[in-house]
């Protein structure tokens, strides 16, 4: 049987196809940037939980860290509302440590702070679970359930934690602190959750040293992941096998 030709219907089909193609293109171009950007930035809305797909980490290049420079410390104090005093009872979330090899005399200076371990001893020992590790590797203290027993300070191999010894005033609303609780570097979690780098890293960059690289260790395209892959890096007290989030280069 011969089918009669139906030029009209071909025309209709062609219009429908082009319409669908155009719609798909419009929809695609509307969604694609979001999908792509999400993939790149991993930015998340505030109500969304953090994910273990990300592991925040830092590489400190001690060869670039300048002796006498404390810009990272100052930036941390400003960002987190610390007094900057350095008495035995004052909080210090980040400090500059000067080290000298006893055999060779080689000298280095480096920032020391919470190393955001994968297996943090502070979290293990905390009786109430106030010390905890976020899914993205940031180690924090829940100020609501910290009872101030200080066992985490006994357990931390890096002396990274401070106890708030006196009442505090004029706090940064984003960084709640309180007398009688333990605290430490949070990787500036409030900034990280806004896709900014920690204040210390920003200050180091601003000073032109660029000794600190921060980013997602799980993302092979991130600067920090590329750097730890390319260079020999060291974990402080690597013998403890804590798999620290902060690594050092040049020591």
């Amino acid at each position, binding site marked *: 049987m011969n089918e009669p030709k139906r030029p009209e219907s071909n025309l209709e089909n062609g219009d429908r196809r082009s319409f669908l193609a155009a719609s798909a293109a419009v929809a695609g171009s509307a969604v694609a940037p979001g999908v792509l950007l999400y993939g790149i930035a991993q930015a998340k809305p505030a109500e969304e939980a953090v994910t273990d797909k990300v592991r925040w980490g830092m590489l400190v290049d001690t060869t670039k860290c300048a002796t006498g420079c404390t810009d990272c410390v100052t930036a941390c104090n400003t960002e987190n509302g610390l007094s900057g005093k*350095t*008495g*035995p*009872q*004052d*909080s*210090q979330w980040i*400090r*500059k*440590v*000067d*080290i*000298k*090899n*006893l*055999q060779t005399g080689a000298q280095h200076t480096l920032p*020391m702070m919470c190393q955001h371990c994968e297996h943090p*001893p502070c*979290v*293990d*020992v*905390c*009786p*109430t*679970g*106030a010390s905890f590790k976020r899914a993205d590797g940031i180690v924090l203290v829940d100020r609501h*359930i*910290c*009872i*101030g*027993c*200080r*066992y985490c*300070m*006994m*357990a*931390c*191999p*890096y*002396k990274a*934690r*401070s*106890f*708030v*010894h*006196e*009442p505090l005033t004029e706090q940064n609303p984003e960084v709640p602190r309180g*007398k*009688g*609780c*333990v605290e430490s570097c949070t990787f500036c979690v409030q900034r990280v959750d806004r896709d900014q780098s920690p204040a210390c890293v920003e200050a180091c960059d601003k000073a032109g040293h660029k000794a600190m690289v921060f980013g997602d260790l799980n993302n092979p395209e991130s600067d920090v992941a590329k750097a730890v892959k390319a260079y020999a890096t060291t974990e*402080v*007290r690597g013998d*403890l096998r804590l798999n620290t989030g902060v690594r050092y280069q040049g*020591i």
Partner: protein
Amino acid sequence: MANNVCLGRECGKNTRFWMLLALGGLVMLGTLSAFFYLEHHGHIMTGMNNQIVWGLPHVFAVFLIVAASGVLNVASIGSVFGKKLYKARAPLSGLLALAMLAGGLAVLVLDLGRPDRLIVAMTHYNFKSIFAWNMIFYNGFFAIVGLYLITLMDHKLKPWSKPVGLLAFLWRLALTTATGSIFGFLVARAGYNSALYAPMFIIYSFAYGLAAFLVVQSVMYKWNNIAMDERILSRMKNLLAVFVAAGLYFTVVLHLTNMYFAKQWEFERFLLAGDNIYTTLFWLGQVFIGGIVPLLMLFSPNAAKNPAIVFLAALLVLVGGHAQMYVTIVGGQAFPLDLFPGYAQTSSFFDGEVHSYSPSIWELMLGLGGIATAFLITTVAVRVLKFLPQDDFKEIELETKEG
């Protein structure tokens, strides 16, 4: 004889009893003042800091907790191992265990940064934390030893005293294991990080607990004008000597092991041969006053006949025990963490230097509150209930012949 001793209110000596209560109450008043003062101003008023995070209050608290578990040993020897001499002392032993644990825990709680959150500590448990396990063991200890005391004092429940006593004995071993492990599990610090802490604390607890028991027993006997039986005194002082010697043995093993490891040399040099308070407290306090002198006294020919010698030796063991706790707790923190082995280290956070600690009067008052708590509980309890050891001398004679 002991059986005829009057302990109730009708037996007089009211003034002395109230004076004891007043004394304990006065110390407690000081403790509570210190607590509220620190609660208001913060720990800035103490000598504790971000380097020495546990100080004098913890010395008193951990001592009392360790001694509390040890003092129960007297009851365990009676109920679990069937020794009549000790069974007669089981109620007092159980009471002292509860009183001293209450005292120790009171200090720990009053020293917390947020004591108002005690309820949080009781409702949020991180089961990976040995500290959390300790809280369970402490609470359980109160329940089990309380039950044990009831089985001892209620004639109908007497048959239960053996199984409950056994449970209390096992529980106290677990408790002291956990207390020692608070330090044993601290992986990063040179002074701790040793499995030896668990058994060592158990041995220390035997010595401190028995010493505390002997001191209280001596005072109670003196109070009631009872002469201590020579056979009883002889056996108890020999047991104390064994515990003190065992404590010294564990101390030697811990330090010998450390001295074998090159990475621990600096710490051992600091502790055993340093120019600091910890070296003095270790040799003079822990080893000499708390170990060698009591041993010499307990083994002296007249010790069994002279309760004063045993009393004094037990007192010295308690003094030495506090020195040991100071060396262990504060000394262990004073030695700096070695973040970069093979490097000299300096920083604004006192890296690489021996940390200093000067306890304040407030901390001392908190710590003494622990002893006062134990003292008050004991004083009231022995006044209202029959806790004075009631010996059956015929059975003791039999046991002495057998043993």
